[in-house]
């Protein structure tokens, strides 16, 4: 009996199981403390929608053998730049989202291509180099935000030049525009249909991509490069394609995230967005060399569920102190750290 349970846990994966159990405990605690469960669930759903695509961006990178995309900020900056440029030209509402999406794909393709070239040059040390190239890209864009003469008053500081730290999407009629699209309520729970559809669509596209000949080749190259080589595949080219794909998803992910959050966060905002996304996919049962769409979805649900439930529960337990925020940071980083320790590097060789 004990053995059977042990086997089942092994199959689900220990991190997934541990985080799932913690989430369950927190949800029960929230209920017992008199929190509104429907509000909590609405929040969780919204945050899943906001973060899902950023987590999905891990998939192509992992499958291609590059490992989790720690350089997520690169794609995020590409997406932000696309949005800012469209805002500069006063695009609003759906026009803004549409134009930014197109521009984002263009920018992120270029950035992803260059990043892919870099990853091919540093085979074996991808994770570290990726993390630092993400950080460097943030620094570089910080300069751009200040140096490029954007002139739209809605984005600038009250005084002086350069862009604001956070830009209100409401001023461009784009706050919650996707979240509220077709949204409806079941009882008191709000279902953000627009976001869920977007996430589902991108998941489908990703899945479909990995059913194609190219996708299959990328996957084989990630699993066993020598095998792929012997089948006449160009592994470096495939890794670049995967990185471009991942970077584009990161860019689209930040557009989805920003509209849900209501603000575009510039400067150091993107810097630390890679870790939660990496943690989420690992919590979902992926490893550094293997990942699937279910890993992404399970991971984002568990991780965001934990973050969303954790906070109000902590608030209530530690009312009137600063402790709640500290606890939040401890939980968030604790889960990230835990998931990262579970990264098994290398393929099956």
């Amino acid at each position, binding site marked *: 009996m004990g*053995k059977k349970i042990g*086997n089942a846990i*092994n199959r689900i994966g220990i991190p997934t199981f541990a985080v799932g159990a913690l989430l369950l405990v927190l949800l029960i605690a929230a209920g017992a403390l008199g929190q509104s469960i429907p509000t909590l669930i609405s929040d969780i759903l919204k945050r899943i929608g906001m973060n899902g695509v950023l987590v999905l961006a891990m998939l192509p990178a992992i499958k291609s053998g590059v490992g989790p995309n720690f350089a997520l900020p690169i794609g995020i900056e590409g997406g932000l730049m696309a949005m800012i440029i469209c805002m500069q030209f006063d695009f609003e509402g759906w026009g803004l989202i549409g134009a930014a999406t197109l521009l984002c794909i263009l920018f992120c393709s270029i950035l992803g291509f260059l990043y892919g070239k870099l990853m091919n040059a540093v085979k074996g040390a991808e994770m570290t180099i990726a993390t630092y190239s993400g950080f460097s890209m943030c620094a570089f864009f910080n300069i751009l935000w200040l140096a490029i003469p954007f002139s739209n008053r809605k984005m600038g500081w009250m005084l002086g030049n350069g862009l604001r730290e956070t830009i209100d999407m409401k001023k461009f009629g784009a706050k919650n525009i996707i979240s509220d699209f077709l949204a409806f309520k079941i009882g008191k729970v709000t279902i953000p249909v627009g976001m869920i559809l977007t996430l589902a669509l991108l998941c489908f596209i990703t899945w*479909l991509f990995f*059913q*194609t*000949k190219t996708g*299959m*080749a990328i996957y*084989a190259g990630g*699993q*066993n490069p*020598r*095998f792929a*080589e*012997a*089948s*006449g*595949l*160009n592994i470096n080219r495939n890794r670049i394609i995967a990185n471009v794909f991942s970077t584009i998803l990161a860019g689209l992910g930040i557009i989805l995230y920003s509209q849900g959050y209501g603000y575009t966060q510039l400067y150091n905002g993107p810097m630390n967005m890679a870790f939660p996304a990496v943690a989420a996919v690992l919590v979902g049962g992926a490893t550094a060399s*293997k990942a699937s769409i279910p890993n992404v979805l399970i991971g984002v649900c568990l991780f965001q569920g934990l973050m969303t439930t954790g906070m109000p529960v902590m608030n209530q337990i530690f009312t009137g102190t600063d402790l709640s925020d500290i606890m939040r940071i401890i939980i968030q980083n604790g889960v990230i750290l835990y998931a990262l320790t579970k990264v098994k590097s290398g393929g*099956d*060789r």
Partner: protein
Amino acid sequence: MNDGILEFINVGKEYSGHAVLKGINMDVRPGEIHALIGENGAGKSTLMNILFGMPVIHETGGFTGEVRVGGQNAKIMNPHDAMEQGIGMVHQEFMLIPGFSITENIKINREITRETLMSKFFGQRMELLDHKKMAGDARKALDIMGMDIEEYTKVEGLPVGHMQFVEIAREIDKTGIRFLVFDEPTAVLTESETEHLLDAIRKLAAQGIGIIFISHRLDEIIRVSDRVTILRDGEWVATEETKNITAAEIARLMVGRALTLDRTEGSRQISGEEILRVENLRVNMPGEEVKGVDLSVRKGEILGIGGLAGQGKLGIANGLMGMYPVKGKVTFKGEPLDVANNSETLKKGIAFLSEDRKGVGLLLSSPIDLNIAFSAMEVHGKFIKKVGPLSLTDRKEIRENAEKMAKELDIRCTSVAQNAGALSGGNQQKVCVGRALCLDPDLLLVSEPTRGIDIGAKKLILDLLKSLAEERGMTIVMTSSELAELRSICDRVLIICEGKVAGELSPTDSDEVYGLMMSGVSKEEAMKASGAVQGDSLQKGGAVNG
């Protein structure tokens, strides 16, 4: 007395509900060489994995029954427990760390350390590695094997034969070893290397070490073992004193019918047309360097390439497929071929079955059906269905194709959706063969096609190669360490020595001539020494069936 005896008591094992071992009883005495034999997938490696406490066993629900050492339940839960009990294992699939040197691989986890000032205060972890002493020990172990490669060479890129020796050297080097398991150690070795190994095994047994020896080569078992245990489909069939049993009887007990590898003259159509011409081929494959080979292959023939390990015979096919840096002029079907660009090579109709099935041959954590279809899909766009602008993989066709192959090649699996990593070693090899066949090549390069395959399946694969040549007119270049295999189907055999072609022999030449030529004696002298009628064989050259 059961003093120091190793016993398996009623051992059983299931992999996800599928019983692969059923109530096995077996014992090994100190100083005895106990052979274990059975078809591919009979459960030999699984039984040994249980003995060695391998994680695959305990991650998949453990096993039933007991392993006893000296009459007591040994409770082996991991390889470390096994080592504590003095059990060592040479694995069928290598467990070496590529980036480490031979010495480091031999000494891993058992490093010899020297005291330092720091270590006096902080304990053993701060001691320095004694590289000199370690290298000395490694040298000693390598010498027992008669292996003259430098101990500081990196394991990465070593030919498989050498890796096998390193693996064995690591076990030999362990002190306090009481039982040693060899899981198909000779599968990757040539005949003379095998001799070295069998000698080493006898020496070890004479020191009182109990040896379990797994092999598909019956003659070795007869020669080296004291007792033999036969498994069939996870069940114990018999345990016999080797001196009371013959190879034919063992084979019959294993598969339920008698088998031999005799040469039967076929009806091949070998045209005079040259399909492949190789001039001054140089391949920089570590340990199997090719230093200027010229050869010519005619359409429809089966050309054998033989030679000792390390002489470069494996480098030829690997070089032609661009797996290693390569130079030279290659002409295929009258057109020049850029061998460095293997995607072009594959497209033009050359396929390659690598000798390194784990490293090059398989996607271990992908299903069998995908493994079989993969190359044909990427190279020729087979198994693809067009949906609008997308070329999607056709799962159904992939599945059906694999099922057909599994039947043809007798791949023993519960379903073709299983991961290739869950197959027994020999069945993995059959999956690789299946993949090469799906490419439907005009020229098939096969390296060690029957390595690790049981005698039943070996015959099946050799017959298949022969029928491909006879019925489809496929040209085949087969590289093999096994003379019997080369001689059973090839039309002519090139012997490679020191990276060059030493000469060409006919499959009907005597063992002696083969042996002499492989060790570097010129053809004339070899013929003279063996007293063969020289002219006859020379004339026949490559046209035995032509």
